[in-house]
């Protein structure tokens, strides 16, 4: 094989993407953990650490641009770098949503939650699992898995709808709960957006593998 150094650099770029993915997954996970345990310090840390995620994104973006400028990647290599550029933008936004949930946690403060957390953690776990698998699909160049992940977005949408309706009834029943319920709706909405971002990533994986741009699943929201 020729161009060893270049292929090594490409591999490193993929590893950087995975590192950023881990950072985002941690923020997502911690934001729900902090909500469950009413942990304000943890929430503050998530907000603070979002800067590190953003920095990582710029770092990867810069490396991609340098690769394009200095190595003239072609065909699948070019699609890989284009996919990475798009994926890091999606992941940065996912980090922002996790940060948003940490902020909501601070807003709720010491107030008791208006309802026990059941579907919210489920939504979060679903999102985390989708992210984990889509990044594996990226590494394995697995368009089939990527497409299947897009279909799972419907489950997340259904969970969101359920939470939304439940909280709506809660508010109608008891206007004192409007504020607390609104926070949870925002939070669930962030989780729904996170899953949408995963489907964007999945589309990029499909494009990278097949060379075809396809919108695999259109989210309801």
């Amino acid at each position, binding site marked *: 094989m*020729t*161009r*060893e*150094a*270049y292929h090594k650099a490409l591999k490193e770029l993929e590893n950087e993407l995975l590192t950023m993915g881990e950072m985002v997954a941690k923020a997502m996970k911690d934001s729900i953990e902090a909500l469950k345990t009413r942990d304000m310090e943890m929430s503050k840390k998530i907000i603070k650490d979002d800067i590190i995620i953003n920095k990582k994104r710029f770092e990867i973006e*810069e490396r991609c*641009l*340098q690769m394009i*400028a*200095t*190595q*003239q990647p072609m065909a699948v290599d070019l699609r890989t770098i284009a996919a990475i550029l798009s994926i890091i933008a999606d992941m940065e936004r996912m980090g922002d949503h996790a940060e948003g949930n940490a902020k909501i946690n601070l807003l709720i403060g010491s107030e008791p939650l208006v309802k026990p957390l059941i579907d919210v953690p489920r939504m979060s776990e679903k999102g985390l699992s989708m992210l984990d698998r889509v990044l594996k699909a990226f590494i394995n160049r697995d368009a089939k898995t990527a497409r299947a992940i897009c279909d799972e977005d419907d489950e997340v949408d259904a969970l969101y709808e359920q939470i939304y309706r439940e909280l709506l009834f809660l508010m109608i029943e008891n206007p004192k709960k409007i504020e607390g319920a609104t926070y949870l709706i925002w939070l669930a909405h962030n989780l729904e957006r996170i899953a949408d971002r995963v489907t964007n990533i999945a589309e990029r994986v499909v494009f990278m593998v097949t060379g075809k741009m396809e919108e695999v699943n259109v989210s309801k929201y």
Partner: protein
Amino acid sequence: MNNAFNIEKLNVFYGDKPALDDVNMEISQKAVTAVIGPSGCGKSTFIRCLNRMNDLIPVFRLEGSIKFNGTDIYSKDIDVIDIRRRVGMVFQKPNPFPKSIYENTAYGLRIQGIKNKSRLDGIVEASLKKAAIWDEVKDRLHQSALSLSGGQQQRLCIARAIAVEPEIILFDEPCSALDPIATAKIEDLITKLKDDYTVVIVTHNMQQAARVSDYTGFFMMGKLHEFDITKKIFTAPSNKMTEDYITGRFG
């Protein structure tokens, strides 16, 4: 001191005609430095100054200083032969001698008076390996070098340069006579060579400069307009002229 070369206020003339105009440049050790710029800007003139190849041109005249590991190579008491051994050169067209592959590789060693067969064998093998051509020629070392393909001939020339254990290898458009695959092989080789050698490469192909080098200098009309880390030059050059050149807006 981490620089292989420190070039200060270098001015070169062919007769009355200036070819290099106040060039200041530091060339890092064990890195690849590329020189780019439009035809006639002085790239070859520049690189040939680094091992005194221009001395052979009667109208050539040089001002300023070129320090190689701290020593001015144009000072009076310098041994030019020694400089050319320590600063090897590979040219645009592969130029093997009409001799065997073995003899081509051993050429410089024979000139140095090395006769010991097993020593020669060892260096020939090591050099051909370093030049990433050993596997292709090990069974035909005594066949004519002219039976090799252009890309193989060029790697043989690199092996010949390596055999005399230089510190620097200068390349003047080493791939312009080669096809893309042979070019990729040479580029790979250049990237590996920098583990052991300092490399300076002149190339017409700025994509090649981008791919293989750590530092890039952009010359125009004898002036070094910009010299920086390659990644910087090709993503965000500081000089408008450089930007216009690498984006194909002139030249």
